[in-house]
């Protein structure tokens, strides 16, 4: 029963891929609590630790690396980020434990990480594939200098550049970024410095350090005043780009960390406020382990059965963690960050590396590979233990192109050399030149069509050994069940449709591009009448995102949502007409909700306060969002942020009459963390406050 359920869960409705060109670089967001991980050079640009950036990053991440300080335990940011991602479609993510060097040698971890990233398959998230967005790489103020000179606070014109992601962008699509609505696209301008620069970086013959030395561009500078000498101040701000390539890449091993830097960041972070995730007293750590695993990946086979749905136990808020719990297992020590337990942990780790797996705590069980222990990387996406090995053997080299804004100087590449015995295949590939990249891409395409034709040409794809094997395996399992046969037919139909589209579109010349700008295009956009604050307070560490809105969604109206107060993070009940900040779609808006509850007779009764443990309805004036859009309400309390509630929108603009309700269950840590909600229509009997 359980197995079937799992299998079903793994199935996804096939969707058509409408990106025809070369795909844009995948976005990898590195999220971490304030102090974490600076010691290891594997810091990519992080998602800044403020809630707005976290929300934006959660929306754009193709892969999120959640860094967890193993010496400290889970921190709230991780969970907050998880929540955010859940609300925005749940991209792939990996948990990465850091600071493990305190109790074990971590030579190969980074190599492993690069490999895991390299073999990741990024699912197309529905929400994203139906609207275009641009993660801004480069930001320039192009206001005429004399205007700025005359009035320092005049509205500015800016140009922003970035790869177009999501779906094709039609000319005339309204973009939403802060309050900027009028944008004119400058596709012609894309052929300039910025693109050259980006291309230059993609050329992987030299390490990025060398390139930066040669380059005149100051990256990530935080100059407070941006003068209008555009070229000198051309800012490149790379969120993070990971480019998968099989070409020769000089990767340096990064695990030899430099202490100076660490100290620097410790100092920097002393100021910051760390919020440890506090776990309840007497919690069964087995539960935690299990649930965490499941929460991360539904496909995981490792999670043990557990029908216990009580979540309250998991994170009973406010209770002090108990130290010196005799029964505490290793995992518990990880959660609590107790030093004593750490020692215990490291011992255990070494024990198990010898093959004694007497610990049934699978989650924290070190993955034994030869005599090596790679405890630090919990990769969550790999379907099966069997597959896992194959992933290890991936002969794909990965170039991690990593730019951490806070540590500009430390852009490091790594290389998995002979450190892992299982990437023996990489040598041959390193010899290949740039043409291999092209070839590889072509092969990727071939692979797709091969899947369609049910014809795996083994010789064609020697570079893509791993992928092919995985596919084949998946394929066989597909054949087994008849349901998936149907699935396969759909896939084939969709693939056919895609080929048709490509054929039709290729036929057209540039002028009559019907589909607009294709995804993966490097776009330049000029935006006029931007408030000067945007330029004045521009911070290259914070992502700038340009999101397109679909037809009919540019409007505002009444939205009804079903919501529940977040039971961990928001202690107080919410009050009607207390302003909240709502993040719906790309937009964030402050609004005044009215809470209500549906009586048994179908009438909606207004509530002054939200119920403590029940769902209620909220009606507020805000941007219209498609039904089932996940949303959240961050609440700022002192410096930290809390989510007061999370909900899904069912979209109900303006007035609406009755409708059905739907609930979505949000799993966090594999447990039903809260039911979410949605929304609905229905204004019957509900008092609505006036907008504005």
């Amino acid at each position, binding site marked *: 029963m359980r197995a079937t359920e799992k299998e079903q869960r793994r199935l996804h409705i096939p969707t058509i891929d409408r990106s025809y060109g070369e795909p844009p670089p995948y976005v990898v967001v590195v999220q971490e609590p304030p102090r974490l991980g600076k010691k290891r050079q594997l810091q990519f640009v992080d998602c800044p630790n403020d809630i707005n950036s976290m929300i934006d990053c959660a929306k754009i991440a193709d892969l999120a690396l959640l860094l967890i300080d193993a010496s400290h335990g889970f921190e709230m940011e991780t969970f907050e980020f998880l929540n955010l991602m859940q609300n925005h479609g749940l991209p792939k993510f990996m948990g990465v434990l850091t600071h493990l060097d305190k109790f074990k040698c971590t030579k190969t971890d980074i190599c492993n990480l690069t490999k895991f990233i390299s073999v990741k398959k990024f699912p197309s998230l529905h929400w994203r594939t139906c609207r275009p967005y641009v993660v801004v790489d480069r930001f320039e103020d192009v206001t005429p200098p004399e205007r700025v000179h005359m009035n320092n606070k005049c509205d500015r014109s800016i140009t922003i550049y970035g790869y177009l992601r999501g779906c094709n962008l039609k000319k005339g699509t309204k973009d939403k970024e802060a309050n900027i609505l009028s944008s004119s696209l400058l596709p012609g301008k894309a052929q300039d410095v910025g693109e050259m620069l980006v291309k230059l970086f993609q050329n992987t013959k030299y390490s990025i350090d060398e390139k930066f030395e040669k380059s005149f561009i100051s990256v990530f500078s935080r100059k407070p005043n941006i003068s209008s000498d555009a070229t000198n101040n051309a800012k490149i701000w790379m969120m993070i780009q990971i480019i998968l390539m099989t070409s020769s890449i000089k990767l340096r091993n990064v695990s030899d960390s430099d202490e100076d830097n660490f100290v620097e960041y410790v100092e920097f972070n002393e100021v910051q406020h760390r919020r440890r995730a506090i776990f309840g007293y007497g919690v069964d750590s087995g539960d935690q382990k299990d649930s965490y695993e499941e929460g991360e990946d539904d496909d995981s086979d490792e999670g043990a059965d557990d029908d216990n749905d009580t979540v309250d136990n998991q994170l009973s808020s406010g209770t002090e963690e108990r130290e010196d719990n005799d029964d505490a297992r290793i995992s518990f020590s990880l959660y609590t960050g107790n030093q004593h337990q750490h020692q215990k942990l490291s011992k255990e780790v070494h024990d198990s590396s010898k093959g004694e797996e007497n610990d049934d705590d699978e989650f924290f069980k070190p993955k034994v590979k030869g005599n090596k222990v790679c405890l630090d990387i919990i990769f969550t996406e790999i379907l099966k233990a069997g597959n896992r090995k194959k992933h290890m053997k991936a002969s794909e080299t990965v170039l991690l192109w990593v730019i951490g804004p806070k540590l500009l100087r430390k852009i490091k590449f790594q290389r998995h050399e002979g450190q892992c015995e299982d990437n023996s295949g990489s040598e041959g590939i390193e010899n290949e030149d740039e043409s291999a990249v092209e070839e590889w891409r072509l092969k990727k395409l071939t692979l797709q069509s091969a899947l369609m034709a049910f014809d795996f040409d083994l010789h064609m794809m020697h570079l893509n050994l791993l992928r092919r094997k995985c596919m084949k395996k998946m394929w066989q399992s597909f054949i087994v069940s008849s349901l998936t046969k149907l699935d396969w037919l759909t896939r084939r139909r969709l693939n056919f449709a895609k080929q048709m589209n490509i054929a039709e579109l290729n036929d057209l010349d540039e002028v009559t591009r019907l589909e607009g700008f294709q995804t993966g295009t490097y776009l330049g956009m000029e935006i006029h009448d931007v408030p000067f604050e945007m330029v004045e307070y521009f911070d290259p560490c914070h992502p700038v995102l340009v999101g397109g809105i679909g037809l*009919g969604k540019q409007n505002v109206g009444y939205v009804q949502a079903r919501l529940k107060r977040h039971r961990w993070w928001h202690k107080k009940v919410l009050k009607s007409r207390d302003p909240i900040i709502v993040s719906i779609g790309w937009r964030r808006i402050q609004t005044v909700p009215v809470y209500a509850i549906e009586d048994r007779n179908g009438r909606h009764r207004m509530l002054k306060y939200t119920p403590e443990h029940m769902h209620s309805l909220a009606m507020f004036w805000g941007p219209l969002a498609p039904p089932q859009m996940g949303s959240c309400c961050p609440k700022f309390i002192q410096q930290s942020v809390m989510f007061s509630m999370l909900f899904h929108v069912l979209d109900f603009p303006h007035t609406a009459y009755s*409708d059905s309700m739907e609930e979505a269950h949000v799993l966090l840590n594999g447990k039903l963390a809260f039911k979410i909600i949605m929304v609905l229509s229905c204004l019957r009997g509900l008092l609505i406050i006036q907008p504005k």
Partner: protein
Amino acid sequence: MGKKTSYKRLKGSQSLRQRLVLSTLASTPVLIDDIRADDTMPGLRPHEISLLRLLERICDDCVVEINETGTELEYKPGIVMGGRNLVHDCGVSRSIGYFLEPLILVGLFAKKPISIRLRGITNDPKDPSVDTFRSTTLPLLKRFGVPSEGLELKIESRGSPPDGGGEVILTIPIVDRLMAVRWLDEGMVKRIRGVSFSTRVSSQFENSMIHAARGIFNRLLPDVHIFTDHRAGPQAGKSPGYGISLVAETTSGCFISVDTAVSYARGEVDEIEYDEKRELMPPDNVGEQIASCLLEEIAKGGVVDSTHQGLLFLLCALSEPDVSKVRVGKLSPYGIEMLRNIFDFLDIRFDIMPDPSTGTVILRCVGCGYKNLSRKLS
């Protein structure tokens, strides 16, 4: 939030139907001025007012403002709600066919399926008749993935101009999205069907029309069936009239249709644009003429007839963001107007490619991926 609505400004009275439909679908408020400002009868016509009333009826939150002379219209679309058992009187200045096309487009993207009773003129020479709608438009919709359940037009009673009195019940299902089509093969005509009707006149009129039409078709293909629909009593409406609707079905499932109706026009001033015919055309001539018209439509080629071009283009533009490719005969003025309006409202450009060998035109577009946002979740 509290910003004033920004209207899209348009001029003139032309293609009001298309503009209103597109405005509703794209939720773009429109402000149209200069509506027949220089006309002897300035302002909106009764049927246009009636269409606005109809939109108001099926939408929530829809605001219509017309100035005193009727030369300026402010339309702010709302949410298409739909609903059952709606009633609308279409008036007698245009036939029900005028209202059906906008209604079906808007109705597909409503919150709830629409079932509406429309009163007025069912057949007139100007607009597509309800028979054509049933035989041709509904199958056209199915091509785009509209389910056939709940897509129905029932003719309760017929009404001819000038006094109408007809009544039809239209039910439209809702869809989540429309599929893109690739529809190039018009095929060969395999059968011809048709319906003739007569209200308040002898059923002999029908027989003569059918006889005349068959006289032409019988030389070309054997499978010709034209049904008669003689109405009497309360079902025959208030005015006498007769007419015929023909549809040719091809081997590839395309429907090409023509229709006409003959009746006394109202000799009033506000009907000045109506083609007044003192002498009504005898049924034999009507039959012959309509058969020739059908042959002409077929000769033009294309997967739809010229009256359905606009609808076809709009459906393509609303479909999923895949490439739609359709073949039509010579572009009709209505179709061209629709292409312009689609570009205006939805930013969708069609690639037009003439095919000289057949005298047809191939159009391609990438749909805008319109989704039914207000649709209730299951």
